[in-house]
């Protein structure tokens, strides 16, 4: 199964005249390239248009931009998953579930597209490429398979944002904005997680296997999160310097 994470109606490389799709200026690009691991950034940027569907290593980079790209990668994955859930609904979905998953799919698509726009227009940088999902382990016709995957993605997303907050540096003039935006998104992921958990096991919205004895939700490092998410993505993501 091979489908691009961005749905067919969206052509990010086209419509560059759209206000939020301003291509980064040559000067900004070199500032970006110099500020990060220069050679890697240049190689990735150079590959972006030609190799979008080719598996390869995608570095999420470092600094605040890497945290944004990390979030963008996870939202690409979630958005692609729910887009497929809506496109090919499980045959045994119960009443109302498809309608709710249609809403969740929109939330995740908004997160994905907003983060991409923010990277380009607020961070004045180049987002990572469109990732190609690998959903071969998921049986989209099966409610149980879809719900189990949804729970895994949502709980993972919550733990990812919880761990990433402290990696956002305030020394960047946009650092406070990035943290606030991450906070606005993570609680919505937690709402999704609670909803899906309750569908699988009623009352498990904040189960003891997710919330510890101090009443704390999970928190994971970028490398731990990507290690879990990697099986669903064709490209190899390198999160080793996220937030550093």
């Amino acid at each position, binding site marked *: 199964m091979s489908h691009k994470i961005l749905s067919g*109606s*969206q*052509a*990010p490389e*086209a*419509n560059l005249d*759209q*206000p*939020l*799709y301003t291509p980064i200026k040559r000067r900004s690009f070199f500032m970006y390239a110099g500020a990060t691991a220069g050679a890697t950034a240049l190689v990735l940027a150079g590959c972006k248009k030609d190799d979008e569907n080719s598996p390869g290593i995608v570095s999420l980079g470092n600094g605040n931009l890497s945290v944004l790209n990390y979030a963008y990668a996870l939202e690409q994955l979630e958005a692609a998953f729910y887009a497929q859930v809506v496109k090919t609904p499980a045959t045994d979905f119960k009443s109302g579930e498809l309608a709710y998953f249609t*809403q969740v799919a*929109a*939330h995740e*698509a*908004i*997160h994905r*597209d*907003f983060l991409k*726009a923010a990277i380009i*227009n607020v961070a004045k940088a180049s987002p990572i490429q469109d990732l190609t999902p690998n959903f071969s382990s998921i049986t989209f016709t099966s409610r149980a398979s879809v719900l189990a995957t949804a729970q895994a993605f949502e709980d993972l997303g*919550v733990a990812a*944002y*919880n*761990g990433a*907050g*402290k990696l956002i*540096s*305030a*020394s960047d003039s946009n*650092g*406070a*904005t990035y*943290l*606030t*935006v991450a*906070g*606005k*998104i*993570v*609680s*919505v992921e*937690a*709402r*999704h*997680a*609670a*909803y899906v958990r*309750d569908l699988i096991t*009623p*009352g498990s*919205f*904040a189960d003891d296997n997710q*919330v510890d*004895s*101090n*009443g*704390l*939700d*999970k*928190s994971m490092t970028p490398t731990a999160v990507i290690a879990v998410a990697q099986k669903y993505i064709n490209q190899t993501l390198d999160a080793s310097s996220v937030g550093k």
Partner: protein
Amino acid sequence: MNFLNILNQLAEVDSNVFDRFDSRRAVFSSLGTVAKRSALAAAPVLITSMFQKAYAGTNAGDPIEVLNYALTLEYLEADFYNKMKASPFFATASSADQAAINQISKHETAHVALLRTVISGVGGASAVGAPVSFKTSTFATLTSFQAQLAIAQQLEDIGVRAYKGRATDLQGLPDVNVPNVGTINALESALRIHSVEARHAAHIRVMRGQTPWINGNGDLDSQPAYTGTTPENNVTQAGYNLTSAGVITPGVTYSAADVQAAFDEILTKAEVLDNSRAGSLVQ
């Protein structure tokens, strides 16, 4: 007081600490100069101001103040659920609903205990804020399990917004070692509580027949819990109206309901403690 030890301990959790000061030598020379001029008693004040200056590049506010603010809200929630469980209406709820309230209550009580331990560990026992209770006379007006749930939903959604609103006040703080807890980062701990509150809010909303997320179609959406300087029906993020056609995705227009639901919004401390929200609920 061993100033070198303080700096070195700080360096263990914040490797950039020496970079934050102009230089290690400048720290000691300014300390020396002032130490000559000032009584030794003035040194702690000096060090405090130096640390404030060192972290001026961060957004860090006073973490004790932020944590006590969180503690106040957790006390309020914890006491509310204790009152719910002790209420005669609790027995009218289904066993599933009772189990959910018991689970949520357990978390709020744990949050109170954790925050007390952290505040005490960082600032000493005297820094821990006083307990607050949910106003008894207000609770008495809630004459059904469903009426109590409506308040629970608003308390949880306000809690989510309150934590979110203070995140930047904890940004840039170094990890600290808290006795009986271990090494923690205040922002990370706050975020880990924040997402639990969101899980609670989602479940209570569903118990009440609402969507788990806030999309403008809820029965309580006009209540102060959902209004504010940045209301929950906000559709503008980072300066962009996300409902405008093609604004973030060429050819795609997102509905207001979906955009509103995709982002939860902050409340400031003043807004949370206003009498229209949590303020009037405190005994």
